[in-house]
């Protein structure tokens, strides 16, 4: 089974690479044109676009978007740090989100998380941050409710959804990540 990748996640490893192509610029301009009253409103769509294209939003992304919308960099950075969806560092090629909202937590999300962490050989970084494996293959974080409480615990791997993930299923999932 090959897992569907989140668009462009293959770019996530290493520095914020990839050129800003004319096509990308055109896409960005189209997004900006949707907000004729205040182009500042386009900042969130542009952040999504940047992350989908380049994998994460580093200083280059913040500065490019700020320039595009005539904003100060800090105004873009505020948003990047506010929303957990936006990431400032590259994630692994396979990014796992383990739900830890109450039903999943009761259903053993902690155990699943620990199993995944061990299988991926990830070091603890504390404070619920995202762990990334040294080879950039895997990354793992907790997430809030993924809306499938009846089949807890649930895991999202890139865009693929997995239900009732116990230790065995976790091992299968990790093994399938090639």
């Amino acid at each position, binding site marked *: 089974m090959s897992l569907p990748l989140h668009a462009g996640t293959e770019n996530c490893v290493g520095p914020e690479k990839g050129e800003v192509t004319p096509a990308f610029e055109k896409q960005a301009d189209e997004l900006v044109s949707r907000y004729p009253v205040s182009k500042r409103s386009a900042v969130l769509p542009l952040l999504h676009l940047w992350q989908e294209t380049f994998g994460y939003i580093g*200083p280059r992304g913040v500065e490019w978007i700020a320039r595009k919308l005539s904003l*100060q*960099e*800090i105004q873009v950075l505020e948003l990047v740090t*506010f929303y957990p969806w936006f990431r400032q560092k590259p994630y692994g090629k396979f990014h796992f989100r383990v739900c830890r909202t109450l039903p999943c937590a009761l259903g053993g999300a902690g155990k699943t998380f620990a199993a995944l962490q061990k299988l991926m050989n990830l070091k603890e970084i504390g404070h619920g941050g995202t762990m990334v494996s040294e080879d950039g293959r895997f990354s793992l974080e907790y997430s809030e409710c993924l809306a499938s409480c009846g089949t807890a615990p649930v895991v999202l791997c890139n865009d693929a959804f997995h239900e009732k993930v116990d230790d065995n299923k976790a091992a299968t999932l990790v093994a399938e990540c090639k």
Partner: protein
Amino acid sequence: MNCCEKHPMNPWNHDVAKDEKDLVDVQVDGVWMQMPRGLNVVEVAHRAKKFIPHYCYHPKLSVVGNCRMCLFEMGTPKMGPDRKPILGADGKPEIAWMPRPQIGCATNITPGMGIRTDSALVKDCRNGVMEFLLINHPLDCPICDQAGECKLQEYSVEYGTGASRFVENKVKKPKNVDLGERIVLDDERCILCSRCIRFSSEVMKDDVLGFVNRGSHSTLTAYPGKSFDNAYSLNTADICPVGALTSKDFRFQMRVWFLKETKSLCASCGTGCNITIGSREGKVHRLTPRENESVNSQWMCDFGRLNFHDLESKNRLDRPLLKAAGQQFPATWTNAIQRAADTLKKVKPDEIAVVASGRLTNEELFVLKRLLGELGVTRVDTVMNPGQADNFLRSGDGNPNSRGAELLGLSSGGRKLGAWGGEIASGKIKALLVLGGEDLVAAGIPADSLAKLEVLIFSGILSNATSQLAQVVLPGAAFAEKTGSMVNVHGRLQRMTRAIPAPGEAREDWMILRDLRIALTGGNSLHSVEDVWKSMAGEVAQFSGLSWAKIGDLGIQLESAPKIREEVSA
């Protein structure tokens, strides 16, 4: 206040009513009164001599309503079936009180509104807000510079409880963050009111600051790699209600409750920002802006604010000097004044040139004007000191009182002065009296020309190339050390007040000039600055009818001021 125009430097003026005569009835703590339409509840309470505590609200910045400290109890008139207010036994409308509190900063008054600023609910709310704000606060008041003027401290005493119920660990945040050249940030003290962010963005139009992260981890920061070096950055330390932003220049120097506060003027450029001088035991520790909507609102530039360290410069002149055998030696005032008078008497009036100064007060200039009139000296001018105009507060005129000098006829804007170099060289000018510490070498008269003068008398606060050539050096007083009046570039007459004595034997310049006048012409009727003012008001048309008291703390716009420049250039 009857000002309906927005001050151009403030995007908001919540404390200024659009129309002071358009009134609505409101009830504040049980008392019915009339207040201008459009004011918010914090300002209405203020005018009703009540106080609603607040952190994030600032009358000159946009309203964000994020501190929740200004919660009050609000009511609206009860309406009968006929849609008319139901009147109570006292004939006043009965008020239906809302069960939930509202924020005063973001609530404008409406007709018949009831406002309670001290009910049990309000007190409870304030208590709760204070407890929340203090949850992560480090409580390091003993080492915090804001202590003594900290709103968190004041409101804790006034509205908080003595103890916290919070037993968990406080959130750790960055401390001692070097935000910029002049500002240090302590993120743990920050209560996230965002006044500094709004000041940078709305008043300075230069966003560098912002909040990153979320929830209890929200942190004030400058964009990585950028520093908060705005020319007005220190105003954020003023408006910061807590000790998060502090001035590098002032921090750890002096406890604020020891400071003597003197209302005065900034003398660093022609704008004449109103300031408060904070001094203790003869030493100035800080300058802070003093509100004057006609001049500087509540702001001042960092340059002016920090431009007081010259008062303690090692080049400060603190006793009279006389030159003998090519060297300057300390002397007594009596001898110095006598020597100055004697040497001046030896040359003809038309061989004397006087460099007055746009740094002198009107009173000093007036004593000088009298002296020159009595002597018959006509060669007088000032040195122009170009400033760095920035379209906000800083003026292109580096002298604080150029307009005063023009108005008293002692300045041609530096045009006459241009010819003096040649006239000194040709021997037409034999004596030069330099006032206000002007450095003529820097102003373009070569030092070897000055050395040829028979008489060179210098008065000022700092030694410079010109003072070193002088036969008589008369040490004067700096802006914080003298009382007088000045006229700013917009023609506003304002008062400057002495905060500290001049160091050593240095004297206020008007006294030096008075003594010189006594020694030269014997004339004296001026015993105090007020005396000088009275004589001046009698003689100078623009000042006529104005008394020292009338100028007041905020100054007076001179009606004929706009003409002054034309008269000079004519």
